[in-house]
């Protein structure tokens, strides 16, 4: 792109959108009519302060032996509106003292009243809090003093970041010779020097059970999918599947329904080619094999599987322990999401919805949204607000509860689908869904906590990558506008990995 192609944004290309109460699956953003950002947003992220020591080579001098990161502050901004005879929204915000999230919708030639597709870029200000309200030009002695009356609120937010249009491209075409079961991203560890969170992509590829058989393989990239390496998962047999995968600590951990076990290796050693694969079988019950895994942190993960079995994983290298032995339900469980170390949601066949709020000390069931339908995906957005997607044999509907499953409402999606394979959020606002239609999967994205969904890729000239289905989706950072999806290519035999980024 040359400098002449760049269309710089000006102040009039920016519109203020807000969500009173903060982003939530039940609240869509609204345009702030006659409004603008009245003070430019900014955020101090903390200065580095020197850690010094006496200079060993000179008296009266010191040397820097390290730095201390200063405190990160909340972002500040202000929005203003022209005062009109109508009820003042800004005074309401001041008086209610509720959270108000803001979006700056930027565009040059779209429709500023179309939040999802009218602009070209969004800047999101989460957890907005009003700190001050004021008027401007509230009175005049005469016409010489007469000016438009305005009002404004000062606010702070928990930082801010951008959302951009997302394209879609197939990556790893030369190595994806068979179906890709899972895709995961290793975001790095704290000691790395400025790691790119989306660079290390890990995919589990199916084996081939024909004689003599090819074992399942891990495909891994260190550059966001530009180039790939592969390694056999030596602990799996050629006919054994990878039902799901997750990064726990610095390990990639796979569960296999057929082998009824966990398979894992260290990711950093994998990239050094010095790793070995290990298998944990301890704790798994015969014929109650795993189907999905979710991890809250390195010491709290959950595996769900056949017969309604729920396993707790304190240390994947040691094994699992049964937390619910098909007591709450005997249905096969297809998906699990651990929101934190206490709250976990799982769904399965025949409308089974299970949850715990005490780390699995007790599991409870609620009546799911679709009687008799297999549920295939779930996400615990907060303790009481859950997304559930219909799985194989269902009608591809996405359901939402805001009261821990007492009532359910269907979420509006851009089209109708056959089944939901995956639901994943990277922040409160940004999430992705893989939904199957007849013969292909579509990736949907929200930046409004699931209140509104758009089909990827975005943009008038964007073309979706053909596929048979996409069973897994991975995200890496709320700042990167990047997601990956994986599954079966449209020829029905090869695998496909999609990268969605701006």
């Amino acid at each position, binding site marked *: 792109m040359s400098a002449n192609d760049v269309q710089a944004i000006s102040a009039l290309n920016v519109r203020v959108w807000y969500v009173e109460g903060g982003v939530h699956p039940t609240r869509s953003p609204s345009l702030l009519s006659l409004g603008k950002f009245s003070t430019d947003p900014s955020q101090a992220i903390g200065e580095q302060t020197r850690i010094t020591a006496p200079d060993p080579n000179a008296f009266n001098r010191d040397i820097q032996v390290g730095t201390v990161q200063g405190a990160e502050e909340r972002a500040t901004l202000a929005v203003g509106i022209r005062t009109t005879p109508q009820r003042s929204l800004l005074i309401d915000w001041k008086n209610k003292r509720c959270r108000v999230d803001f979006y700056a919708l930027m565009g040059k030639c779209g429709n500023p009243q179309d939040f999802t597709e009218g602009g070209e870029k969004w800047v999101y200000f989460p957890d907005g809090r009003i700190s001050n309200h004021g008027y401007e030009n509230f009175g005049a002695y005469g016409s010489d003093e007469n000016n438009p009356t305005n009002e404004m609120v000062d606010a702070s937010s928990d930082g801010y970041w951008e959302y951009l249009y997302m394209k879609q491209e197939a990556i790893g075409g030369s190595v994806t010779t068979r179906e890709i079961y899972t895709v995961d991203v290793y975001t790095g560890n704290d000691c790395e020097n400025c790691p790119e969170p989306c660079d290390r992509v890990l995919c589990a590829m199916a084996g081939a059970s024909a004689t003599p058989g090819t074992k399942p393989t891990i495909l891994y990239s260190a550059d966001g999918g530009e180039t790939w390496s592969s390694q056999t998962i030596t602990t799996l047999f050629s006919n054994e599947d990878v039902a799901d995968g997750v990064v726990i600590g610095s390990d990639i951990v796979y569960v296999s329904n057929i082998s009824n076990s966990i398979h894992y290796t260290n990711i950093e050693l994998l990239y050094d080619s010095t790793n070995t694969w290990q298998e944990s079988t301890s704790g798994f019950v015969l014929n109650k094999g795993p189907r999905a895994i979710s991890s809250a942190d390195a010491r709290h993960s959950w595996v769900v599987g056949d017969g309604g079995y729920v396993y707790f994983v304190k240390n994947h290298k040691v094994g699992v322990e049964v937390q619910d032995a098909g*007591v709450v*339900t005997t249905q096969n469980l297809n998906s699990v999401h651990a929101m934190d170390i206490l709250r976990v949601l799982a769904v399965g066949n025949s409308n089974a919805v299970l949850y715990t709020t005490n780390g699995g000390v007790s599991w409870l069931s609620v009546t799911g949204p679709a009687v008799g339908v297999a549920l295939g995906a779930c996400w615990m957005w907060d303790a009481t607000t859950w997304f559930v997607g219909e799985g194989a044999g269902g009608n591809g509907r996405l359901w939402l509860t805001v009261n821990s499953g007492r009532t359910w409402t269907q979420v509006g999606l851009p089209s109708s689908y056959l089944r939901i394979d995956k639901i994943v959020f990277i922040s409160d606002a940004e999430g992705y869904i893989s939904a199957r239609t007849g013969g292909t999967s579509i990736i949907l994205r929200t930046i409004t906590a699931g209140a509104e969904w758009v089909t990827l890729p975005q943009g008038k000239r964007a073309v979706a990558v053909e596929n048979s289905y996409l069973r897994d989706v991975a995200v890496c950072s709320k700042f990167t506008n990047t997601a990956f999806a994986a599954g079966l290519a449209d020829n029905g035999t090869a695998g496909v990995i999609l990268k969605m980024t701006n």
Partner: protein
Amino acid sequence: MMQNVEWKDPETGRMYETMQDGDQRMVIGPPEGLVDNLSLPEPFATNLHNALYRRKLFTYKQVTANHKNLIGALQEALSLDAQILTEAFYNFEKEEVPT
């Protein structure tokens, strides 16, 4: 030498954990005839027996130590749980509504 061996009664299809030494076999559990005392019809009696076997519920102590596991065994034996029963109610009432 005595060995722990899984054994399936060829007549009843019931699974047992046994200690075996050559032709000698001693049942560890589930107790033989336990489910027959419950007056359950077949195949539920055998289903329950095998569910107890799979869950290693062999003694009173094991059963009382993990009561939930016992409920799981019952559900498994009957191939019935809250979800299936809910679905049955739903379908029954749907059929009753005149169109």
